[in-house]
């Protein structure tokens, strides 16, 4: 790595560290890497931590309870088993005294266990969400990065392609590809795979249409970063395009990417549940949270729990992802002050010209 780059990075880090130190009111610490700073800021964000914890619990619960990838889980039922109705299907769990009971979330009319169905649904929804996030993030980064770095005809082509896709409203486009992903009538290679892994296909297809917003953001980021002095210095010292992109620009653009992938994922959960609700996403006999809500909305008057639990899980997953995204945004964007009321009020009271926090850093906007 060339000398000016390191200096630049060092300066940026010092400014960041100073800003962080002033904001947290601790002693000045030197020599923190960007990753360390981001981690520290992220773990200082209460909302994000709670979101992370909730998501981790739901993730573990969903994937271990009914089993995944052919591995059996610890819960005694699965989402298709029919068992005799216990207590007319009302939920058997209680908070005080805490007990799970036979069917903690109750049963539906024909006796399927709602806990198993909800867990299976959460599993499918989370799978789709992660696939959309991963694929959209990768395509968005590649397209946006190439367009922003190489400019010229590459940019023109890629950005016109983005324009073409972005003009189609995402829900409408997703509905169309969801319908394609559910096609089962041909004897193609897809059919055999899709019969067992319907949601994987759905997630991949949805990922292929959700990247456009990300591509635009990443391109903007690359456009600013490629004009910076450390990129010029690297180019003069003979670094290849690949090295400049991966070593010099991408690490600086990764914040924007990660934050927006997280926000895309929280939108993806709602997209998947909405599609399944409309009958264009995950289809029976498999299940997803949106499908569960759709199947059970008529039964609201008689069996409200069938409706409450899947909806609750959609909200919990989406809310926790949103909070994680918010925490990441605060962590990656040094100009945004930390959401801490007490210290903010105190600094406002005691602030003078000398203690104005150095929050402007050389990191691009």
């Amino acid at each position, binding site marked *: 790595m060339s000398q000016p780059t390191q200096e630049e990075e060092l300066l940026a880090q010092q400014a960041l560290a100073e800003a962080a130190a002033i904001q947290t009111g601790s002693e000045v610490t030197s020599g923190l890497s960007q990753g360390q700073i981001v981690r520290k800021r992220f773990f200082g964000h209460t909302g994000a931590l709670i979101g992370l914890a909730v998501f981790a619990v739901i993730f573990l619960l969903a994937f271990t309870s009914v089993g995944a990838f052919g591995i059996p889980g610890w819960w005694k039922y699965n989402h298709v088993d029919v068992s005799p109705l216990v207590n007319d299907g009302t939920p058997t769990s209680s908070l005080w005294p805490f007990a799970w009971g036979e069917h903690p979330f109750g049963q539906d009319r024909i006796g399927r266990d709602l806990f198993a169905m909800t867990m299976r649904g959460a599993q499918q929804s989370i799978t789709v969400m992660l696939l959309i996030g991963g694929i959209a993030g990768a395509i968005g980064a590649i397209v946006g990065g190439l367009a922003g770095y190489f400019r010229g005809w590459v940019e023109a082509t890629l950005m016109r392609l983005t324009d073409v896709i972005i003009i189609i409203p995402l829900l409408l486009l997703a509905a169309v590809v969801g319908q394609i992903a559910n096609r089962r009538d041909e004897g193609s290679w897809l059919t055999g795979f899709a019969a067992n892994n319907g949601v994987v296909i759905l997630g991949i297809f949805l990922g292929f249409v959700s990247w456009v917003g990300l591509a635009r953001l990443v391109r903007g980021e690359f456009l600013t970063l490629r004009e910076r002095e450390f990129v010029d210095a690297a180019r003069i010292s003979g670094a290849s395009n690949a090295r400049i992109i991966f070593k010099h620009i991408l690490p600086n653009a990764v914040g924007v990417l990660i934050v927006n992938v997280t926000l895309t994922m929280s939108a993806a959960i709602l997209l998947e549940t*909405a599609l399944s*609700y409309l009958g264009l996403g995950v289809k029976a006999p498999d299940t997803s949270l949106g499908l569960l809500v759709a199947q059970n909305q008529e039964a609201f008057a008689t069996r409200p729990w069938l*409706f409450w639990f899947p909806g609750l899980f959609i909200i919990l997953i989406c809310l926790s992802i949103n909070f994680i995204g918010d925490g990441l945004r605060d962590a990656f964007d040094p100009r945004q002050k930390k959401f801490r009321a007490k210290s903010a009020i105190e600094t406002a009271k005691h602030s003078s010209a000398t203690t104005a926090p150095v929050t402007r850093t050389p990191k691009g906007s």
Partner: protein
Amino acid sequence: MLTYIVRRLVTAALILLGASFLVYLLTALSGDPLQDLRASNAPNRQALMDARINLLDLDTPAPLRYFKWLGGAAQCLVPFGNACNLGKNIAGQPITEALGFALVQTLTLVTGATVLAILIGISLGIVTALRQYSALDYGVTFMAFLFFSLPIFWVAVLLKEFGAIGFNDFLRNPEIPPAVALGIGAVLGLIGAVVVGGAVKRRLIVGGSVFAAVSLVLFYFSLTQWFRNPGLGPVIIAIMGAGIAVGITILVSGLKNRKALQSSLIVVGIGVIAYFAVQPLLNDATGLMIFLLAIATILVGVAVGYFMGGYDRGQSMRAAGLTAFLVGALLVVDRFMQAWPSYFNNSRVRGRPIATIGAGTPNIQGDFWIMSTDTLTHLVLPTIALILVSLASYTRFTRSSMLEIMNMDYIRTARAKGLSERSVIMGHAFRNALIPIATIVAFDIGALIGGAVITETVFSVRGMGFLFIDGLLHTDPNPVMGVFLCVAITAMVFNLIADLAYSALDPRVRIKA
């Protein structure tokens, strides 16, 4: 400027061509349009299949079919040619006809919801920005995150259950138990105390008075069965009008501008007199008449402001005009309430006014007020659902935009030269914060028509979303393309408007021609 617009339009047309080709191919690929016939056991199966193949022109490969469709669609560009041909749907209905109907349905559904969401969202955003890090700010931030995460179909089912079925049951015997009245009063009082901010004493006074007022009003409603026979009457209109006049004056000019306050109050007085004058007129109202009356009302208000004058005539005119509009709205609300009992007892409604599905009660007969009430009762639930899910983004966006502006140097300058906090916020901060919000609003309006697919499905409104999903489920590209064209063209036009508006509002941004 003109070069810029022309260039944008040419690019837009090319993008539209590419996107429409993509959508057509994808739709045609997405399934088998003959699927339901293949599975049927009808004796004339083959004939039916041939008919559909003929109707949808399935023998032509999809890319070629697209160009045939494009040929028809291109005729729409001929002005006054009346040869617009977007093809027919699977039932043989021309798409142009279906689109016209669906567009009206969708616009009725989304217009009110969007306007309300923007108004409420922006006000909430400003209040939270002004009270940064307060209990109100945290509360609204959390609510915004929660609303972000709400699936609209889930909210819709809850609304149907509690908003419609529950409220209709309540209307059968509209008595509010004292404990419930006190509870609602306590919750609203708490919200009032949180919103008002400031010292503990002030909060307690405001919270307590809100609690007392709300509880008393609810007791009164319960005793008089107000929800069965609602109405405002001139006295309430006068009191509420005075409140509106003071509030508007505080926002527009500040209470120090006595002329503005006086003109607003005069307008309220005229409104109360007009209440008696227009009742016979309102009995045979039409939509056009209400619209003309609204314009006349605003003009009267502006005129009052003009003749009152004062050191800032513009402020008086604005305050009086806004007050006049709101008082006029009160009169209309009162007239709706007068029509409520006859709507309630209508043989088609049968005492269950809040509807859960559809866009109107089938075969209902009545005058303008009955019909409008019918539309409104069908719009209530979808509107609430749409507001809930779109409120959050406006609130968050306004808050951050406002916070950024409040830290600007010129705000400090405005404070330093001794301006009142009101004119700093309303005159300097809010106007500048509106610039980015205006572009967001333009984008959102562009995306509106296609954005209510789920809401339309849940509430069985046969709008654009329904047309799209229905076409998709039958693998029928023509309705899908029709909807796509409408949505894409509005989106592009409004994107262009957003860019132009930005440069018009912010002189620092200049369009490169």
